[in-house]
């Protein structure tokens, strides 16, 4: 009997085109839009050599050393500038107006910088000129106090570039913050699965829907029918989430880290969380389907917003200032679990997220059971 109900519920659920759209197609479409909108942003954050120009001041003794330094930092793969040599101010001004360069230096007794606007590239240009000036100041000072230093290679030492910093990895993966959008999208899809859960409860309580009235007439134990239906819903939801994960990973190249097994486990727990949440809301709210749907959408949307789906830094702000809210937001728990799997070396935070999710599932299931059990209808 269990198999019979399960198979028919499966057929019945999968024909609900509207639900399939919202729980499956919509996240895929939204993911595609995310990808199209964000694929170029990382590139924007990266450092590109700055387009700069140099206008000689006319005094060879001042122009030559600065020009030499500029040339040195404008060659090679790790160069700081794409240097253009201007014949005069007028030409450099024109380049600046046309946006061909970010700024230009005029060398001479003192180096000056001309820019069009304030920005990171312009700040780097200014810092570079500062550096040149302070190095000259230091050389002059040392040479005046210790004239022998010039013979000891002071000038070659100043140009001697050392690596004072070494890079250490922050975590097991690159801090690609755009991933959070996709993680919260998967979390949203899991929570949208609550519609399946709600449908199950609606179709088992005889005072809510006609189909439930029919089911209650049948000689099947209510819990058995409910469980069979729920498993059918869960199967569909998990299959949808797996397809979504496959599309994001293989289609759009979203990185989930190297712990594939745990990622699939998280998706599974997330599906149960979504399903049980829907069932719980379906059981606890008695009046009106509109209100139930509104509640599910509001919780999912507000949860997604707080987990950083619309505004990335929201997740961080909440975790910093209202940590409790981060731990009771089911969308955030899921997003955070994916994030922890991708980014952290240890599984500590992931386990914690998973445990809290399981806590929620137990709470929702117990609540639903207490609401739905032993409800008999004297008259239909």
């Amino acid at each position: 009997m269990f198999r019979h109900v399960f198979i028919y519920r499966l057929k019945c659920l999968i024909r609900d085109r509207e639900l399939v759209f919202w729980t499956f197609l919509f996240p895929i479409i939204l993911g595609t839009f995310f990808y199209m909108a964000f694929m170029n942003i990382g590139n924007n954050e990266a450092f590109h050599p700055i387009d700069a120009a140099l206008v000689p001041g006319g005094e060879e003794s001042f122009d030559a050393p600065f020009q030499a330094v500029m040339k040195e930092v404008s060659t090679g793969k790790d160069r700081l500038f794409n240097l253009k040599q201007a014949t005069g101010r007028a030409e450099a001004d024109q380049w600046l107006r046309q946006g061909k360069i970010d700024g230009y230096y005029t060398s001479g007794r003192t180096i000056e910088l001309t820019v069009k606007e304030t920005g990171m590239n312009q700040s780097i240009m200014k810092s570079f000129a500062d550096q040149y000036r302070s190095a000259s100041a230091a050389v002059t000072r040392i040479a005046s106090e210790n004239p022998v230093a010039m013979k000891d290679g002071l000038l070659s030492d100043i140009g001697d570039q050392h690596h004072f910093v070494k890079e250490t990895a922050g975590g097991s993966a690159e801090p690609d913050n755009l991933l959070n959008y996709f993680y919260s999208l998967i979390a949203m899809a899991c929570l949208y699965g609550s519609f399946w859960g709600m449908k199950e409860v609606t179709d088992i309580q005889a005072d809510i829907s006609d189909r439930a009235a029919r089911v209650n007439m049948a000689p099947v134990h209510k819990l058995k029918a409910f469980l069979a239906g729920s498993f059918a819903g869960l199967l569909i939801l998990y299959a949808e989430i797996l397809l979504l994960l496959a599309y994001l990973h293989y289609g759009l190249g979203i990185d989930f880290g190297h712990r594939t097994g745990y990622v699939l486990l998280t998706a599974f727990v997330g599906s149960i969380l979504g399903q049980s949440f829907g069932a719980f809301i379906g059981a606890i709210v008695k009046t009106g389907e509109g209100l139930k749907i509104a509640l599910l959408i509001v919780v999912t949307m507000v949860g997604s917003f707080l987990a950083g789906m619309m505004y990335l830094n929201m997740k961080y702000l909440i975790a910093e200032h209202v940590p409790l809210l981060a731990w009771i937001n089911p969308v955030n728990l899921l997003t955070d679990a994916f994030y922890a799997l991708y980014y952290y070396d240890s599984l500590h935070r992931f386990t914690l997220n998973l445990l809290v999710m399981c806590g929620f599932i137990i709470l929702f299931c117990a609540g639903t059971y207490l609401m739905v059990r032993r409800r008999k209808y004297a008259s239909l």
Partner: protein
Amino acid sequence: MPVFKLCMKLFLRNWLSVSLYIVIFLAISIAISATSTYEGRTGFRQEKAKIAFIDEEKTPLTEGFRQELGKSAEFISIPDQTEKLQDALFFRNVTYIMRIPRGYSENMLDSGSMQIEKTVVPNSAENAYIDLHVRQYWNLVRLYAKHDPDLTQQQLAERLKQNLAGDTRVTVQKQKQAKTSESFSMYYFNFLSYTLSAVLILGISAVLMVFNKLDVRRRIFCSPIRHLQFNLQMFSAILLFAVVSLVVLVGFCFLLDGKSIGTPNMVYFILNATVFTACISGLSFLIGSLIKNFSAISAVANVLTLGPSFISGVFVPQEFLNDTVLKIASFTPTYWYVQANANIARLTDFSWESLQPALSAMVIVLIFTAAFIALALVIGKRKRLMS
């Protein structure tokens, strides 16, 4: 005017779902206007990179270094715990984590090879920026240590402070800039396209859907009202709804951004929004004649409003988008609406020549409008003939 009145009743029935969009839109707009300040900056301002600075030794040299770094970095204090630091880097609360190991200053003075540890967003501009400062400071330390070895750490720090004092003179080439350039109004009007599309599609197509039901249509056919009269009433109801939506949404802009109201740019912003409203009304008309049930409208409305907003520069500015994406986006009216907005925001003179790019974009939106309406009419005619 029975048809007009019925339309009004139907609009009112949907007011909850429509106003939800308006409330969300306003909340986001207010949040944006509250967190952003659009002050016209004059003169040069050194950018500051956000860094987490962890000094494990605190010597006069590292302290001097911290002070020098402070000119171009904003120090964010984060507890020295791996996960907290990782989180801050991931969410760009900092873009550079710097750790000076114990014994570093002494090692530098002895021309040793110890290194400062950094964890960064790979290849970022902030990374190059801070590295430049690190190199500058410690290179000078090495220089002094080699050629003036008698200096104490304290004296050396003081000497470096003197060397590093003073600023390179920066001239900012003045250019006339429009008041609305990069202003709240520009972002508001861009974002308006999302809300306006959602409100109009949900409102208008829901009404048309009712009229397109076969039974209702048959009932209308046998009513003593002329077809032209019926259409006129329906169109005027739709027009009223569109105008009210536009006025309400634009009205809030006046409340939130007082500075831009007086500019002539605002007139063109509103003109552009009006053209866009006409276009989306046409699109809603088309959707209303194609779709039969309300839940499908909700799905179509979501996809048709979110999609163009993502790829046309409403949520993510056009300059950050990939060329291929923008090419695809140019097949949507939203792209041209955003283009016109960006052009209008930058206008400082209003000659025909400077207005032309914005106006051509608006003409393209009008062509979309004509296409949508023509398509809707053809489909409507076909349905009428079939029923």
